[in-house]
């Protein structure tokens, strides 16, 4: 049958899902990186509390974006119930919801012993009273004893969440840009890169301790490698998209002719921070501002990536 093809992008999932995917990946990776740092690099209660709280807030905000846009908010209980994994193990949103929920729980539990000892938290009106409650104190002691187990449970859920944000898009077969194994890889690398940038901001702007210099340099190096990896993946995407299917080529035409994508994301979101961090790693900067600027750019770029990816997916309709 001769057909006339119509190529169309979608308007079901727009900026709010981009925010959900972005904050989901960023929050989960932030938690994961702080806990692994605390477990294996250097015990760092301050970083853990910053990472845990901001991670939980990001996951909460991201999930709120999805929740607020649901058609029936009451029906959400069926995915919050962990048994959903037995009923719908093939649905990534089911896994993602569970990853996010358990990530938040394990995240709070991992930070709990530190918070219970933190003067700042104990002075907070409601939180202080909560932390002094006997059963919470007991819970904190228990978490401290098993902090490695809790940390790894959080880590598994964190990595799961970051990977999930890409697997979700991959599960839509009609759009060639999304339906390929490069997407979970790209989104995972981007999630960890933005998390590094966020933690560099924390260490440079908020915590600012001289003894963390080594940690900052380590994060800079990791971020540099992650940005490099992201550039390699995007380079592969560039060549993958140049031919293959019309759906893909339409996405190619849209993305790689767009200044927001080229200059905004690739330029300012990846290349500029890469250059800034490369100089920092090789020769060092006299001021913290270049790395702060690089981190902000990476964070903005992380959102742009998801926004553009959602907007550039083309459906090929044979009618």
């Amino acid at each position, binding site marked *: 049958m001769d057909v006339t093809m119509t190529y169309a992008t979608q308007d079901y999932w727009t900026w709010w899902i981009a925010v959900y995917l972005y904050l989901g990946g960023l929050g989960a990776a932030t938690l994961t990186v702080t806990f692994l740092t605390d477990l294996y690099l250097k015990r760092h209660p301050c970083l853990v509390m910053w990472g845990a709280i901001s991670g939980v807030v990001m996951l909460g905000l991201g999930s709120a974006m999805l929740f607020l846009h649901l058609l029936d908010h009451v029906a959400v209980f*069926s995915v919050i119930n962990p048994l959903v994994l037995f009923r719908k193990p093939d649905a990534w949103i089911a896994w993602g919801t569970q990853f996010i929920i358990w990530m938040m729980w394990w995240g709070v539990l991992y930070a709990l012993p530190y918070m219970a000892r933190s003067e700042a938290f104990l002075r907070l009106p409601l939180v202080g009273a909560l932390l002094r409650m006997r059963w919470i104190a007991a819970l904190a002691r228990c978490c401290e004893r098993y902090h490695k187990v809790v940390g790894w449970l959080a880590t598994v859920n964190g990595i799961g969440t970051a990977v999930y944000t890409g697997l979700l898009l991959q599960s839509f077969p009609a759009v060639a840009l999304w339906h390929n194994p490069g997407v979970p890889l790209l989104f995972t690398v981007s999630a960890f890169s933005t998390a590094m940038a966020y933690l560099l901001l924390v260490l440079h702007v908020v915590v600012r301790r001289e003894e963390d210099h080594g940690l900052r340099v380590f994060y800079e190096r990791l971020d540099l490698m992650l940005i490099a990896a992201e550039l390699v993946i995007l380079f592969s995407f560039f060549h993958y998209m140049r031919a293959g299917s019309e759906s893909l080529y339409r996405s190619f035409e849209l993305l790689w002719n767009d200044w927001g994508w080229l200059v905004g994301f690739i330029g300012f979101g990846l290349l500029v921070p890469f250059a800034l961090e490369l100089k920092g790693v090789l020769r060092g900067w006299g001021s913290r501002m270049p790395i702060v600027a690089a981190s902000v750019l990476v964070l903005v770029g992380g959102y742009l990536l998801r926004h553009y990816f959602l907007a550039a997916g083309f459906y090929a309709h044979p009618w």
Partner: protein
Amino acid sequence: MTRYAMVIDLNTCVGCNACMAACAMENQTPVWKDRWRTYVHDKEIGTAEEVHRRFFPRLCNHCDNPPCLTVCPTGATYQLDNGIVLVDDELCMGCRACAMACPYDARYEVTFADIERGRDFYGDLQRERPSMDKCTFCAHRLEQGLEPACVQTCVGSARMFGDLHDPEDPVARLVASGVARPLLSHLGTRPNVYYIGDLKRRG
């Protein structure tokens, strides 16, 4: 076991849209916001002076391997043994992943506001919860031994409905003959709506 399928003959579709009206009345779709379970594209095809008007009826393809089903996190989207893909209004939370997954653009939103409006529009509305709605092949009519509303009303007999597992069924024979073909079969969705092309006869 029955496997329901539809064959649409583009040669005999006259573009009257009676299927749209019949379906809207039968299934109370939110037509006030231009959302239909089935609709008919009115396309201008051909090149240079060889221009034709093609009416192209569309609906959910009730795929054997439905992507909307696998992505559905709540289990609201489910499939009957006869192949019909349905949505449970009570379970659906309206995340729209099904709409993203469907290559046939067969899902649409029914919101609380639509339910409110629908009570005015149709009188006795048959639903209370919002959902990402879709065509049901008129499963409720099939249970009563009736054809889907769009098939029964089709004046050009362009829509034929039948059982693929019955070798004597005219629909099964059309599909087996290869004259009726599915849309986007390369995506692995195994659709159960087939089309008979129109250009050969016109040419």
